[in-house]
Each structure stands twice: as C-alpha cells, then as structure tokens.
C-alpha cells in the first residue's frame, strides 16, 4: 500500500483534516493519557508510552447500552452502533490493535456480537509504532512487536521531526484520501528509518516468555499450592483485568430512570468474588487462589484451546499496575516448574 509522511508539527492539522471521520486519539485529561473523541486537534498528544486504560474501550466500552425499554412495556429499542459510521482511531499502539484480532474471535463464535462487530467495522485504525518499549513489554513473545501491523489499517512511525505513515489496508488508504493533500509521499529513506527504529525498539525489550507447552500444562495445575504464593497477596481488585486489552468479560444489568429503562453491559472481572457467586451462595471459585488460577489459565490455556490464540498481547499493563507486584511472567515461569502431581495431591 502507500507510503506517506508529514511534519510532526503539523499533527493537529492532519488530525483536523480527518473531518469526515469521528476522530479518536490519545488526549491528556487529569494527568493521564486516554483515548477520547477529539474535539480540539491541538489536544492530541503523542507523548505517552502507552495509555493506562487500553483502547479496548473503543470497541467494548466500559458501559454500553444494549437496548432501551419502558418499565411495564415489552417493546425493545436496540442501541446497536452503526457499522457504516466512519471513525478513525489515531495513535493506537500495535499491541492494543492486535488485541482486537484476538477478542474478535470470541465475539464471533456461535453468536456474532453486533455491538463489537459494528464498532470494529466502522473503525479505521491508525497505529503508532513504539520506539521506547516499557520495562514490562513482552509483545514479541506473543507474535506482536513494536512495529506489528496486526489488526491495523495503517501505521505511523515517529521519526523525530517527521511522522511516516504506511497504509496497510483499503480502509487505511481511504482515510489518507479523505485527508486531501495534507500528507506528502514518503520513500525508501523513511521506510528504512522506520524499519531500523522497530529493530532497535525490539532490542530494547527486556522481558519475554516461551509459551511452548503452557496451554497444555496449566489446566493440570488447578489447586496446585504454587498459586498461593501469588494469590495470597492478591487484592481481588480489577486492575489486571480492566486494564487488559484482551480481557472481555462483562456484566449485564438493568437500570431505570423513572419509567425509562435500559439493559446495559459493563466491564466485569473474574477477580471479584461476586463474579461467579451463585444466588444460592455457592461459589465455584471461592478464594483468590481459584480466581488467580482461572485468570492466568483462561489467558494462556482455555482461550488458546478454544481459539488457537493466546489472550495476551504482552503490553505489560497487568504487571505495571498491579499494586502488589503479581507478575504474570513470574507466574508463568513458576508454573513451568510446578509439578502436576502435586496439584492432584493438594
């Protein structure tokens, strides 16, 4: 596809030129950078390693209405997003974009989910390659990388003074066309510089995991005492899962205002004890041990068994933000040393 570039100083102008689209980009608000609909192109920032809250919320919002109704009535008014609407996401990191390619498998088995699918359909993703990976990035171990193109429609590279933009799909090319003449065409030099930057960035990644055999081994470790060295300090909070770009669990609740009501879904997490609690009081995952085991096993075993893809992109958020240093890679390494026989004894 095409190669383009623009001067970094013209970022606001480029964003402004996307007026045919609803533009979503990283914006600073209350000292944190988060993806938001851009009302003022000047507010868009590229000064972030990655956002605290992943852009999974762009396809799967924290809270979203499924349908509306009147209390006492039976008519349902579905609130399905328009697949034909045009939305451009600028500045998404490759790991977060790759996450969409993983969770969309789940959103499409047996019953396609129109909410996720339509949002995805409506969206053109402009990636933003990483030049400076964080301390806990390990994307190459999971098939991604600082310049990974998976799930993206185009990808931008910060080459110092210029931004180099490479389109990858028709959708990406369409967005460039809609920009009019704001972009210049780029050539070999930029492509080479970008490739070099990606290679250097990959070299800076300090953590990794060999995923070989983990999917088969983890289910054998249910109940194994080794989980306790992590679960004993787990707070049962939702940080690791809410901030995970591939965690997709949700709760559904009905809310009303007067007689107007809606059924909505909102992020939920397997780390809360209420998550699997039956109305009878029985809880199949009664302690943090079972819940920790379930979270890790779901990502690295159950999901790959069902979908042939690990539900992790190596963004490192769960490690970075865990308040008690429960380190996913540490768990996985220790799991390799754990003997399945001891799980049966326990």
């Amino acid at each position, binding site marked *: 596809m095409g190669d383009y570039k623009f001067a970094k100083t013209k970022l606001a102008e480029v964003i402004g030129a996307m007026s045919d689209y609803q533009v979503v980009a990283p914006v600073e608000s209350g000292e944190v950078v988060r993806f938001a609909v851009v009302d003022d192109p000047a507010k868009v920032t590229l000064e972030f390693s990655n956002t605290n809250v992943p852009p999974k919320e762009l396809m799967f*919002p924290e*809270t*979203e*209405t499924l349908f*509306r109704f009147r209390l006492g009535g039976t008519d349902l008014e579905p*609130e399905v997003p328009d697949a034909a609407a045009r939305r451009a996401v600028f500045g998404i990191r490759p790991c977060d974009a790759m996450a969409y390619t993983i969770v969309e498998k789940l959103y499409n088995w047996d019953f396609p989910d129109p909410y996720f699918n339509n949002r995805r359909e409506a969206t053109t993703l402009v990636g933003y390659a990483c030049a400076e990976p964080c301390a806990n990035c390990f994307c190459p171990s999971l098939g991604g990388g600082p310049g990974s193109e998976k799930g993206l429609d185009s990808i931008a590279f910060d080459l110092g003074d210029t931004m180099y933009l490479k389109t990858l799909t028709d959708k990406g090319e369409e967005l460039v066309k809609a920009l009019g003449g704001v972009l210049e065409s780029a050539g070999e030099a930029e492509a080479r510089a970008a490739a070099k930057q990606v290679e250097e960035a990959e070299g800076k990644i300090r953590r990794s995991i060999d995923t070989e055999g983990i999917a088969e081994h983890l289910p054998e470790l249910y109940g194994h005492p080794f989980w306790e060295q992590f679960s004993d300090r787990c707070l049962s909070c939702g940080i690791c899962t809410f901030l995970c770009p591939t965690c997709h669990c949700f709760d559904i609740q009905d809310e009303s*205002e007067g007689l*107007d009501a*809606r059924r909505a879904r909102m992020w939920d997490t397997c780390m809360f004890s209420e998550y699997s609690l039956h109305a009878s009081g029985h809880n199949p995952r009664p302690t943090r041990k079972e819940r920790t085991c379930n979270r890790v096993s779901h990502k690295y075993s159950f999901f790959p068994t069902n979908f042939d893809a690990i539900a992790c992109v190596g963004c490192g958020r769960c490690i970075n933000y865990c308040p008690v240093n429960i380190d996913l890679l540490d768990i996985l390494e220790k799991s390799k040393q754990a003997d399945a026989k001891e799980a049966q004894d326990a």
Partner: protein
Amino acid sequence: MSAEEFEPNIVAFLCNWCSYAGADLAGTSRTQYLPNVKIIRVMCSGRVNPLFLVNALQQGADGVLISGCHPGDCHYMEGNYYARRRYTLMHKLLEHVGVDPGRVNMSWVSASEGAKFKDVVEDTVTKAKEAGPMEQFRRRRINW
C-alpha cells in the same frame, strides 16, 4: 430556567417522635410550610443512613433536610447524637467534593415546634434556591 422560577426539590427525613410530629402540628395548626419538601418518615434521625442523602441528591433532590429531636430528647436516648456527628462530617465531605453546603441541612424540631418546622423548611428552600438545581452528580442517563 431563571432563578426566580426554580423551585427546588427538598427531601426531608423526619424522625417519627419529634420532627414528624412537628410537621404534623404545623399542618393541623394551619401553619403553611413550603410545598417543595417531600417528607420521609424514619423512626429516628439516627436511622438515616448517609447513603439516603447521597442517593436523594443523585435521584433529583436539590436539597436534603434531616430533622430529629433536640439533644437530650431522643426517644431512643441517643440516636440524634450519633446523627449529629454523622451529618456534621458528611456535610463537610460533600462540601469538599464541591456540593454547595446549602444543600445539606439538619435541624432539631420538637413535636411542639410547628412554627419552627415552617422556618426550617423555608431556610432549606432558600438555601437550595441559592445553590440552584443540583446537576453535579445527578443521574442523567449519560450515554444511554
């Protein structure tokens, strides 16, 4: 809506033994108090959970009034003392979040103080009018 037209919604939690009887007395002695107030009778001001108050503000109240027996007169001996501590603090907390201090009010109204009840309601309404409609964290069907 201009300030003159704005008629605030006041939710009043009145204790069964004093303030509710006080409001009743105002009624039977034909002392008219402002109709902005919606009364919820509770057994004691000490029974009022601070969540009642926050929830009222969330669901459309522009001001809240909690009223109980005078100190020393509580039917349950000490319920109003607990309530006093609680709401003195809650008032401070809400103020810190940016809720206008005039929205949270507390008073002691005995069964014989029908006229005082009228004044208390008037004060509460005036303060809520000054504060204007409660918009801050009211449930507004955001993203519905």
